[in-house]
C-alpha cells in the first residue's frame, strides 16, 4: 500500500483511529503477505521454510504474518513448515557477553511464544563453516507451473497428513562462544578499512551462516525480512558498489544463487513506515539491536549515505521508494540464468553470484 493510499484510508476513517480502520489495515496487511506468496508460487505446501529474524521491526513483522497465516482460523491458511533463525552479531559491535545474553534471552522469549523451532546462531560460527557453504548446490529439478496447483490440491485432499508436521521446538541452550572465536571475528572485521566494506562483509557472513543452517537443518527456503524501503536503498547502494549486474538477485522476490536453498523476500511490498505502523498498532514485539552503522553520520558509509538520500527524498516525494523499487527491480532479469547450471559460469566466492567481469563484450 503506498503512503498516499494509507493516508487516504486514515483520513476517511477520521481521527481518533477507530476500530474499523485498524481492522481494515490489518486485513490489508495480512492479505498482502499471502498474496505475494500466492502469486509467486514457489513455496510448496509442507515445505520447510527458515525465517531469518534479526529482531528488527521488518523481520519480526514477517514472523507475525507467518504466525497469523498459519493459524487455524486463517482464511486461506499458509501451508509451509516454518523455523526461525537469529544471528547474534554482538561481537561485531563489541557488545559484552552479558549484553548479548540479555538480547538473546529477550528474543528467545518471543520465539518460544510462536511455537516454531528456532536456532540462535552466534556469528562466530561462520568461522567454522566448511568450504561447501560457498558452493552452489544443484537445485531440485525445475517444477512445471502445473506442479504447484497439483501439490496444493493434493495437500488439501489429504488434509496435509502426508506432509511433515511442524516440529516440537527443541530446547535450545544459549550456545557458548569461545573468546578466541570472538576475537578472531573482531580481527576479521577490524581488518576491513571502511565501514562500507565492513557492512558488506557482515552481510556476506550473515548469509553464509543462514544458508548453511538451512542446509543442515533440512530447510529448502530462506525467508528474509527486507522491506521495500530497505530494498530501494540496497538497490541504489548495489549500483554504487559495482553490483549492478546482481541487482535482480540482491533485491528481487526470489534469489536462487545457492541452488538448493532459495531466498525469498515476502516483505518487499511493505514500506518501513507501514511496518512500523502495523507493529505499533498490533504490538508486534521486536528488539532494537545496534548495528555497525548505528548513530553514525550520513557519510560514514555508502549504505548510510544512500539511506539518508532516499529517506530525505521520500519526505518530500512520497513515491520515491515505490518508484525506485517498481521501475527497476521488477524489470530486471538475471542475465546469466540460462548459462548457469550444467556448464556452471564462474561465480564469486563470496556472494555466489555469476561473475560480471567481461570487459567490452
Amino acid at each position, binding site marked *: 500500500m503506498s503512503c498516499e493510499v*494509507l*493516508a487516504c484510508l*486514515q*483520513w476517511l476513517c477520521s*481521527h*481518533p*483511529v477507530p476500530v474499523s480502520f485498524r481492522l481494515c489495515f490489518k486485513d490489508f496487511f495480512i492479505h498482502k503477505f499471502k498474496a505475494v506468496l500466492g502469486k509467486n508460487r514457489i513455496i510448496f505446501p509442507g515445505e520447510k521454510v527458515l525465517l531469518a529474524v*534479526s*529482531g*528488527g*521491526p*521488518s*523481520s519480526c513483522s514477517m514472523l507475525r504474518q507467518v504466525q497469523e497465516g498459519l493459524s487455524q482460523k486463517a482464511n486461506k491458511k499458509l501451508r509451509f513448515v516454518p523455523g526461525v533463525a537469529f544471528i547474534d552479531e554482538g561481537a561485531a559491535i563489541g557488545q559484552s557477553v552479558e549484553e548479548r545474553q540479555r538480547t538473546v534471552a529477550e528474543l528467545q522469549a518471543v520465539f518460544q511464544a510462536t511455537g516454531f523451532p528456532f536456532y540462535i546462531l552466534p556469528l562466530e560460527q561462520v568461522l567454522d563453516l566448511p568450504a561447501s557453504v560457498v558452493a552452489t548446490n544443484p537445485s531440485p529439478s525445475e517444477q512445471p507451473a502445473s506442479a504447484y496447483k497439483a501439490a496444493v490440491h493434493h495437500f488439501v485432499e489429504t488434509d496435509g497428513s502426508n506432509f511433515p508436521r511442524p516440529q516440537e521446538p527443541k530446547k535450545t541452550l544459549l550456545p557458548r562462544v569461545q573468546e578466541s572465536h570472538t576475537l578472531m571475528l573482531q580481527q576479521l572485521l577490524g581488518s576491513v578499512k571502511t565501514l562500507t566494506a565492513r557492512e558488506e562483509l557482515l552481510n556476506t557472513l550473515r548469509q553464509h551462516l543462514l544458508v548453511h543452517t538451512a542446509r543442515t537443518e533440512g530447510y529448502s527456503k530462506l525467508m528474509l*525480512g*527486507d*522491506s521495500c*524501503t*530497505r530494498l530501494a536503498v540496497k538497490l541504489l547502494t548495489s549500483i554504487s558498489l559495482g553490483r549492478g549486474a546482481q541487482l535482480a538477485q540482491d533485491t528481487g522476490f526470489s534469489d536462487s544463487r545457492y541452488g538448493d536453498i532459495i531466498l525469498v523476500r515476502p516483505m518487499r511490498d511493505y514500506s*518501513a*513506515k507501514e*511496518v*512500523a*505502523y502495523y507493529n*505499533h*498498532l498490533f504490538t508486534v514485539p*521486536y528488539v*532494537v*539491536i*545496534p*548495528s555497525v552503522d*548505528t*548513530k553514525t553520520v550520513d557519510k560514514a558509509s555508502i549504505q548510510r549515505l544512500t*539511506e*539518508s538520500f532516499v*529517506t*530525505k527524498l*521520500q*519526505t518530500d516525494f512520497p513515491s520515491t521508494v515505490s518508484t525506485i523499487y517498481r521501475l527497476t527491480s521488477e524489470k530486471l532479469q538475471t542475465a546469466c540464468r540460462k548459462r548457469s547450471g550444467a556448464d556452471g559460469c564462474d561465480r564469486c566466492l563470496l556472494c555466489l553470484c555469476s561473475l560480471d567481469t567481461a570487459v567490452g563484450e
Partner: protein
Amino acid sequence: MCTHGGGAELLFNGVKKHHVTLPSQSEPWDMKQLLVWIQRNLLKERPELFVQGDSVRPGILVLINDADWELMGELDYQLQDQDNVVFISTLHGG
C-alpha cells in the same frame, strides 16, 4: 505521554516512555514547540539524529493518538490534554 521506539529510544538513554507535563502558557502547545521542549529536556545525545531544522529527521514516524501526524497538521497540531505522541524510527532494522 511521549513514547520512543524503533531505535529512537537509544537517543534518550534507552527510556521509551515519558509522562510529560508541559509548563502552562497562554497559547496552547503545538508540535513544533514540543519538539523544541523534547530537545532541551529529554534528548540525551546526537540531536541531529532526532530533529532536523524545525521538524523530526526524515525516517522518524510520528503518531499522535495512533494517527499519522501528517493527517493532524504535523508541526501545527495543537496538543490536547492526555494526548499520546509516539516517535518511531523506521531506519533501524530489518
